[in-house]
């Protein structure tokens, strides 16, 4: 019934999830019973908050004065000239306090935790941006903060680990599995199993059991709402194409959601293509995965024939994840958003290009979207507009990029 209505266009694509947290067939809540009550409580607290003007006033106030919103929409003049085609614009989430979009979500969920009377916060982090944004919100609100982070990511995103600790968070390196984002989520969930009555889990992307994918999407949708308005005001129209990188999918979901019912705007999600399209060499769940259940929801997952989650790879810690938010799976199967992937090498090149052409060091995650945008701009006419969600800044990646390039810490060719 619902599917038929969607197919006939009578129900907007944005009218999800349903009360059980379904985005079409995707989503849901596949968690141990121990967590059910807390998820119900969160759902209720969120519904009450959304209906409470005081909640919106407080969050909007923080987004303005603490985060620095709205973030600007910038014309990338030299990058556009270099590509020689469509005009490229950046939505500057990198200018947000803490340097990425993640703070939009952590402030919202932090306020929800306060409303629920939970004073201990746990989080997982990959690139460390979500960890930093969580530590920041906790410092601001006076909450205890524990961040789980894969040991491999602790190594490659060291500046963020340091910053989390500066703000009073405890960072717990996770040594299990591939020692990356997926393992950090497992550990955070296990912590929550034993602490759920006093602890809120601020999940960092549009993944996990219902109601997380919906809550995180809603908090991140400020990105897309501002972009719609800025495009209308600055450009006099909506863009032709909007592109964002997809790890778990929160910056993309926040950017895309307000555009989803504008069928004339093409939406493109860029996943981590890693070293190659071979299993284990990439983290492109929507491009190469199959429907499965990971971390509490049904979505595209990189897995083997038995349902064991596959090992994945990306040069970018924030995209190095074998699953993706369920709403993206819904958009993919509905044909609303196209998903593609960009390799490690192309992302690293885009990092260089954008640094030199625009004076912006983008995050390695974001560099995936930038790589696709530059290639695509070259193929499109000059009157077309491409907006890239510039999800975060690359300071955290600078040392790792220097290492990968064989440069010294000062960015020089190391002496032979």
């Amino acid at each position, binding site marked *: 019934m619902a599917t038929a209505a969607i197919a006939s266009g009578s129900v907007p694509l944005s009218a999800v999830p349903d009360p*059980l947290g379904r985005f079409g067939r995707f989503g849901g809540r596949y968690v*141990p019973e121990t967590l059910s009550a807390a998820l119900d409580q969160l759902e209720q607290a969120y519904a009450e908050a959304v209906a409470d003007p005081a909640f919106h006033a407080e969050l909007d106030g923080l987004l303005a004065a603490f985060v620095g919103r709205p973030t600007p929409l910038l014309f990338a003049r030299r990058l556009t000239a270099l590509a020689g085609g469509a005009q490229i614009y950046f939505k500057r989430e990198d200018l947000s306090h803490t340097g990425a979009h993640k703070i939009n979500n952590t402030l919202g969920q932090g306020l929800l935790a306060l409303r629920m009377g939970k004073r201990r916060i746990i989080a997982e982090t990959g690139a460390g941006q979500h960890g930093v944004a969580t530590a920041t919100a906790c410092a601001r609100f006076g909450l205890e903060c524990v961040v789980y982070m894969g040991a491999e990511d602790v190594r490659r995103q060291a500046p963020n680990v340091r910053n989390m600790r500066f703000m009073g968070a405890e960072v717990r390196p996770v040594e299990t599995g591939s020692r990356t984002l*997926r393992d950090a989520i497992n550990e955070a*969930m296990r912590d929550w199993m034993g602490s759920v*009555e006093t602890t809120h889990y601020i999940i960092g992307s549009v993944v996990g059991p219902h109601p997380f994918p919906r809550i995180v999407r809603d908090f991140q949708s400020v990105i897309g709402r501002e972009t719609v308005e800025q495009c209308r005001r600055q450009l006099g129209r909506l863009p032709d194409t909007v592109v964002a990188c997809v790890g778990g999918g929160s910056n993309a979901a926040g950017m895309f959601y307000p555009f989803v019912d504008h069928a004339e705007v093409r939406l493109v999600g860029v996943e981590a293509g890693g070293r190659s399209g071979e299993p284990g060499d990439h983290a492109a769940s929507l491009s190469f995965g199959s*429907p499965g259940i990971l971390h509490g929801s049904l979505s595209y997952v990189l897995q083997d024939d038995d349902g064991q989650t596959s090992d994945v790879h990306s040069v970018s810690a924030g995209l190095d994840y074998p699953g993706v938010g369920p709403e993206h799976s819904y958009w993919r199967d509905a044909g609303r958003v196209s998903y593609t992937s960009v390799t490690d090498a192309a992302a690293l090149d885009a990092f260089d290009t954008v640094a030199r052409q625009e004076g912006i060091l983008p995050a390695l995650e974001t560099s995936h979207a930038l790589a696709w945008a530059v290639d695509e701009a070259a193929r499109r006419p000059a009157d077309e507009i491409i907006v890239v969600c510039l999800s975060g800044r690359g300071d955290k990646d600078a040392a790792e990029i220097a290492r990968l390039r064989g440069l010294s810490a000062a960015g020089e060719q190391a002496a032979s």
Partner: protein
Amino acid sequence: MSLAAPPNPSSGVARIAAQFAANAAAGRKAIAPFVTAGDPDVATTAEVLAAIDRAGATLIELGVPYSDPIADGAVIQASYVRALAQGMSLDRLFAMVKDVTGKITTPVLAMVSYSIIFRRGIDRFVAESVAAGLAGFVVPDLPIEESEDLGSACEAAGLALVRLVTPTTPPERAEQIARQSTGFLYCVSVAGVTGARTSLPAGLVDRVAWLRTKTDVPILVGFGISTPEQAQAVAAVADGVIVGSALVRRLADLAHPPSTQPVVVNIEQHVRDLVQAVAPAAG
């Protein structure tokens, strides 16, 4: 298939019920040991299952290794990693179970993530489980809201689908869960992951006693129970206990393939001690 009719005495649900009826007649409580399939290797698991059967367990829970088990603590998680590294697969697991269930009488239930069942496809997973002689499933990451499809497939196949209640489950919901549970009701002792604990959680006895007034389905308590003394204390109010991490750790400490004989003897003796602790003379 004749197995599709629940009253069939060879259905999983009927075989489990017969075990509890026999326990009631003898005045004893149930011991349901948990072991991970394929840890240290699949041949040892087969021998351990036979040993548990000889030792007089009421049911056996066989853990299906999964890469991302969020309800499990370090011990079981590590056993899953070892089993998968050994090349454990569903095909091997079903083949081993089929072989073993032909030789033992204790019903075997699979403790399996819904991720695994979903990937295989519910119908195929259930059919393969029936063919292998499994009696039912415990699916630790499938709350009642999501369990309708698997529930009806299990009902049609005569398999038990054991539901779980936990300390965080509100009373009304616990009653609802108890009504839906088949085979037995799994009462999780603590809010937390699996893992042996040194003392029983406060309030457990009261919670079980309250549940007892709400349902006739047998109640087994699990998570954290390791010693015969703990088993005895819990069995005073419940229909029995599930012992998991403590056995898995014992296996891991002892296992030195290819000679698994000492492991099997040790596990058999340990399960005998547990069974003894909940036998009539003890209580």
